[in-house]
């Protein structure tokens, strides 16, 4: 048995080259937009002194949740500042927020499309499976060749890795709206758009928010991986500590990520859970 190896890798590289050659200007625009977003958010987060932002986030936590969460926010964020990781943490947060925001902006409409069209769903499902199971490192390479090193390919890789839950759960949420309600909306002569905005999206909202929450968590998990291609932030501290075998520094940076993760998770979860009780 000596079959020639199928040149799958070669083919992928050929596509990569072709895209860089012919779509270079588009990648430049995307690069500028995403780069601008990350530095804009980073600047905004650093505009206020750490202590003021800490208190603001604590106030938000209190408004959304309970005093326990506010307390956690104060202690956690003060610890990050104390460890001297405030700046890089905000850089990482900017990356996560940019990636999540774009993932939601792209993912929700795609999820809606999946819910409206069985064909689209059948095409999208295997692609989403692929995107979620392909090791995230692999996205870094084409991202780098399209967008060079830095935070932008990190954002792109994060979006690709983190977007599937938003698409899936938007689709699921809309499909779970009871057929009787959809029938009622039809019986009163709703257009497809009216049905979507007056019925399906509002009812699917909790499910969609669960998807967005997942997306935020997944893009946070990309922080360390992105640092391998030059994305700055607390992820880079972890990566450096690992490569230099500095357990203490690695643990400190790791704790900072954990604190941000818990805050983002609880805040986004509570945000939609408190809504229906109005």
């Amino acid at each position: 048995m000596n079959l020639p190896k199928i040149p799958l890798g070669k083919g992928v590289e050929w596509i990569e080259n072709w895209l860089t050659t012919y779509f270079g200007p588009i990648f430049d625009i995307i690069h500028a937009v995403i780069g601008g977003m990350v530095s804009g958010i980073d600047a905004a987060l650093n505009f206020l002194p750490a202590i003021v932002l800490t208190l603001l986030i604590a106030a938000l936590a209190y408004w959304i949740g309970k005093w326990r969460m506010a307390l956690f926010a104060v202690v956690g964020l003060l610890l990050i500042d104390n460890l001297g990781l405030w700046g890089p943490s905000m850089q990482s947060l900017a990356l996560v927020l940019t990636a999540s925001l774009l993932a939601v902006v792209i993912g929700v409409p795609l999820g809606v499309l999946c819910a409206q069209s069985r064909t689209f769903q059948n095409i999208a499902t295997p692609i989403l499976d692929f995107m979620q199971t392909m090791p995230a490192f692999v996205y870094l390479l084409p991202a780098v060749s399209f967008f060079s090193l830095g935070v932008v390919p990190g954002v792109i890789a994060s979006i690709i890795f983190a977007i599937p839950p938003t698409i899936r759960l938007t689709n699921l949420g809309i499909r779970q709206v009871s057929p009787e309600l959809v029938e009622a909306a039809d019986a009163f002569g709703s257009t497809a758009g009216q049905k979507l905005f007056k019925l399906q999206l509002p009812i699917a909202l909790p499910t969609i928010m669960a998807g967005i929450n997942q997306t935020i968590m997944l893009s946070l998990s990309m922080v360390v991986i992105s640092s391998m291609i030059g994305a700055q932030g607390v992820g880079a501290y972890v990566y450096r500590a690992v490569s230099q075998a500095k357990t203490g520094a690695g643990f400190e940076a790791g704790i900072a990520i954990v604190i941000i993760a818990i805050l983002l998770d609880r805040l986004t979860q509570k945000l939609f859970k408190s809504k229906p009780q109005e």
Partner: protein
Amino acid sequence: MAIIEVKQLTKVFGHDAARALPLLEQGWSKEKIAREAKLTVGVNKAEFSIEEGEIFVIMGLSGSGKSTLVRLLNRLIEPTGGQVLFKGKDVVKMNPEQLREFRRKNIGMVFQKFALFPHRSVLANAEYGLEVQGVEKSKRTRLAMEALELVGLKGWENHRPDQLSGGMQQRVGLARGLANDPDILLMDEAFSALDPLIRKDMQQELLELQSRVKKTIVFITHDLDEALRIGDRIALMKDGVIVQIGSPEEILIQPANKYVERFVEDVDLSKVLTASHVMRQPEMIRPERGPRVALQLMRDSGVSSLYVADNEMRLQGLLTADNASQALKENRSILDVMLRDIPRVQPDTLLNDLFELMSETHLPVAVVGEGEKLKGIVIKGAVLSALAGNAVPEGGIGS
């Protein structure tokens, strides 16, 4: 004039369903088509027309195709063949735009499980139909409030549907269906999910509401009692076929076939039949006649009493043989001696409500209509034999 005319309306479920049409034309049965063509016949060549302002009940057991049939009327389910003519215009041929207009303006719907929008207030639910039409906020709020008031939900407009009881939720459904003032209201098992007592109330209220708003109502139910209580006409369905259309009395008294007969045999007739069904022609006498004539009449017809009614059939009283002899002896007019305080009922009094009255008196009960006009009399024997399921004079008398 018929507001809805349905011609050869057919729905077949399955792949390439239209191929079942010629098979149905050849008279293939539902079972044969299911077995050999792997298609499910939902509604088989339904044919009926609905008059403006009537309550048309489509009734049948589950799986009989009644829910499918009602959805063919507003094309929530796409018909496989046939026509639905709304004021002469074929709904089946409407393009999406026209269909949307038809659903918005002409035909409302109330659902079995209410299908209220849980994220909207009661008011916003009632407003929905107007909202999708693009009616401006202040106007649609006013119309929706009127509809809520009509169904007795004033003061509840800011609640969420899930804060309301089942009966109240269905009132919201009803208000939502009525708010955009459609010509026709489709009610798909609208009261089936309610408790029996609340259900009776709702049926009664629907009848009252109907007498005020005069909508054409197509009401789907699997409950014969409900059909008999609210229907002006009833269409009975079995296996996708309409087996009989008629008034409640026609269905009960002249079942079209064994199926309908079996269907109606368990009906509590005392709650369906009325005095007008069991009454018979009374022996009567004009008030100006003398007692001698009265006694002669009684002898001739073999009865012991006569009803006294004037030339416009207005009931005056009852003259017994004893009264007549007394009048003859004392030389008085029959008006002076007759019994004036006699039991009387309306023609639409249910037999159920007649029992008590009949047990308290040995006299026959007079059935009087508007203006005290004597329509007939009810004697005990007739009531009992009617309840035994026989000897009901066809359609009663004088009606």
